[in-house]
């Protein structure tokens, strides 16, 4: 049977290096299958995070051949097998061990976002088209791959000033919720630092859920921030009418 050669990062907070492993190929095999094979046969303590193995939980993120991916959805037969496949942890987060990184920063950012707040007097009649509009943002599985590629975090490490694309998506899912009455524009501008995003779209490219992070979440939110801070009257009119999806 054909074999694949893997270069898997082994190490911890103090550093590490790639280790070469060979695994037999099977039809339809994904990278996570290969890692499990290595655990069972070669490196029993190889640290890998995963849960559903079905692309639904966003646990198994890593960098495969330099590209941020879900390892449970990356087919081995879609990768060139004539050279070793490199599997490294996400670079923007501190390594705990091997492919497992410390993503706790994301949970701290999440805490800052004011929760859903129903508009007073909402009667909970909602049209399907209003559900469809926010669906996209609520699909997010929190794989943090977008956080991992965004240069503001990856190259500039601005974790204190910037919330990152995942949390713009989350805010969009709340702000465009047909029943929500809170405003998070101040938060976007200050704590989440949306102004630091210069719309490179790298986040959108890696999102396994095909969320159009930049076009559908970030740009409308940037406009909303501008409206609220520079055209408060318009914002007020919208709030009163309850029409929050005013971009389209």
């Amino acid at each position, binding site marked *: 049977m054909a074999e694949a050669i893997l270069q898997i990062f082994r190490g911890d907070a103090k550093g590490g290096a790639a280790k070469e492993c060979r695994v037999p190929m099977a039809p339809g095999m994904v990278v996570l299958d290969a890692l499990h094979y290595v655990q069972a046969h070669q490196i029993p303590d190889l640290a890998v995070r995963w849960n559903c193995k079905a*692309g639904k939980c966003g646990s198994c993120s890593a960098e495969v051949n330099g590209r941020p991916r879900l390892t449970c959805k990356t087919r081995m037969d879609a990768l060139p097998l004539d050279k070793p496949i490199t599997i490294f942890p996400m670079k923007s987060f501190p390594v705990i061990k091997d492919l497992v990184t410390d993503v706790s920063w994301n949970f701290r950012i999440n805490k800052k976002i004011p929760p859903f707040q129903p508009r007073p007097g909402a009667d909970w009649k909602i049209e399907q088209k209003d559900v469809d509009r926010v*669906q996209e943002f*609520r699909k997010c599985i*929190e794989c943090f791959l977008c956080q991992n590629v965004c240069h503001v975090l990856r190259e500039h490490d601005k974790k204190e000033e910037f919330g990152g694309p995942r949390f713009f998506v989350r805010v969009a899912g709340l702000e465009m919720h047909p029943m*929500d009455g809170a405003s998070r524009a101040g938060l976007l501008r200050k704590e989440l630092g949306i102004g630091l995003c210069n719309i490179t779209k790298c986040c959108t490219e890696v999102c396994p859920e095909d969320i159009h992070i930049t076009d559908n979440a970030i740009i409308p939110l940037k406009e909303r921030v501008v409206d609220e801070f520079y055209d408060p009257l318009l914002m007020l009119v919208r709030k009163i009418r309850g029409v929050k999806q005013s971009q389209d």
Partner: protein
Amino acid sequence: MSDRFETHEHDVLIIGAGGAGLRAAIEALGQGASVGVVCKSLLGKAHTVMAEGGIAAAMANVDAADDWRTHFRDTMRGGKMLNNWRMAQIHAQEAPDCVRELEHWGALFDRTDNGQILQRAFGGHTYKRLCHVGDRTGLEMIRTLQDRGVQMGFDVYMECTVTRLLKDGDRVAGAFGYWREQGRFVVFKAKSVVIATGGIGKAWPITSNSWEYTGDGMALAYEAGAALMDMEFVQFHPTGMVWPPGVQGILVTEAVRGEGGILRNKTGERFMERYDPQRMELSTRDVVARAIYTEVREGRGTEHGGAYLDISHKPAEYVKRKLPSMYHQFLELADVDITKRPMEVGPTCHYMMGGIRVDAETAQSTLSGLFAAGEAAAGLHGANRLGGNSLSDLLVFGRRAGLAAAKHASSTPAPSVDSAQIDQAERDALEPFQRKDGESPYAVHRDLQDSMQKLVGIFRNKEDLQRSLGEIDKLKQRLKRISVEGSRLYNPGWHLALDLKSMLAVSEAVALSALAREESRGAHSRIDFQNLDPAWGARNNIIGREGEAMRLRQEKVLETPGELKQILAEGK
């Protein structure tokens, strides 16, 4: 109290951050209790996130004739009347409010034309009853609960595994566990403990369940002296993926059939006509799983040993909108475009009806201060669970467990824990490091899975079940010889070695209960006893611990009161 370890104190400690655990936490917080939530994975990754099809609740938004009585009847009939009637009643009555409450906390469901929550058909439900959002209902549910809990202020201990419950005399007093990341130990002191740890699917190789489903909660409760019930009832979902090998077992949601998907064998025959001509594809899961299994065994299976499930007669846009994750799952993992070609599907180990025996009103186990909810608890589903009844179960009984746990905590003095228990828990956890060149945990796990698949699968018989108990005994011996390599820092081999203890305990309980029940009922099918036996219909199998030995006894099923019997007798 040993102060060698990091220690946390709460009124209520909740083990598990799926739908049941989070709902319990929110309720306990609302009562003013201090709440800690422990989970093996990161917050938001629990199994509940994977649920696809929907939440069953008789809201009557689509079929106006629906009400709790019909939901109650469907649940009892699906469970072959072995259910705890009171749980089935509470569940049917409270589910609609729980769904509305979830909506008020920000969950967004698909809508009907007049703006209400849309409901879809599912197997065994008389009416269109499943509230859903596309095929990612669980994600919407877990995010909503998670965000609410975070805002209300519970303490979450993520990537932390509990390995032992601590006791103060006859009542529960907390838990002992380890941080998966650093391998350090941690002690939780609590007046009430809620187990919401989910199921046991990882004891089988072909399963829709993740690595977390090792039956820890049931094993912890059993070890601490609580009773387990109905352990023979393991649900094999009829439609898991069968090809390619790496994805074997991954769930194909029942919503495919709910939306009109048709099952065929390799000759093109719509075989459900022979097994359940009335309900066809939307028959209960036990029936459909056995039908597919039988087709394959009798030589009418597909190329890779399954059945065809076809939704391609529906407009492609409709399929992509109603079943988006299925569309992508097959396209990306199996190179199949389900809007054009049929899927290949076969049974996969999916859900545990049995579990910790609880009181219907309070979700308290037979051990004082220990509560259980969600998949880890038994009673609501009887011998077979209907699709969609789990998510509603999590909300209804998660809420009740949280409420009762908080009340219990408010009327109980703080427990004390002697350090001997903690020292023992530490020794047990470290044991695998003491040996060199022993058994590999991965090998023991694989052999357990093979044995459960072969001997304790969809169809069972006396000889196989007896053999499986022998195998489990041998595996227990091998577990004592396991050694792990490396350090305590995020070490999956070590984690598995500890999980195996739970898996072996629940596997034994399943085999023992299955051997005793000499009849076929719901998900439990005996080749040597193919019919329902009324005598067994009046008995639940109860598992308890006597010293080191597992003991099985029977107890009478709770008698359904007259007016509810009336409801059960009505309808077709």
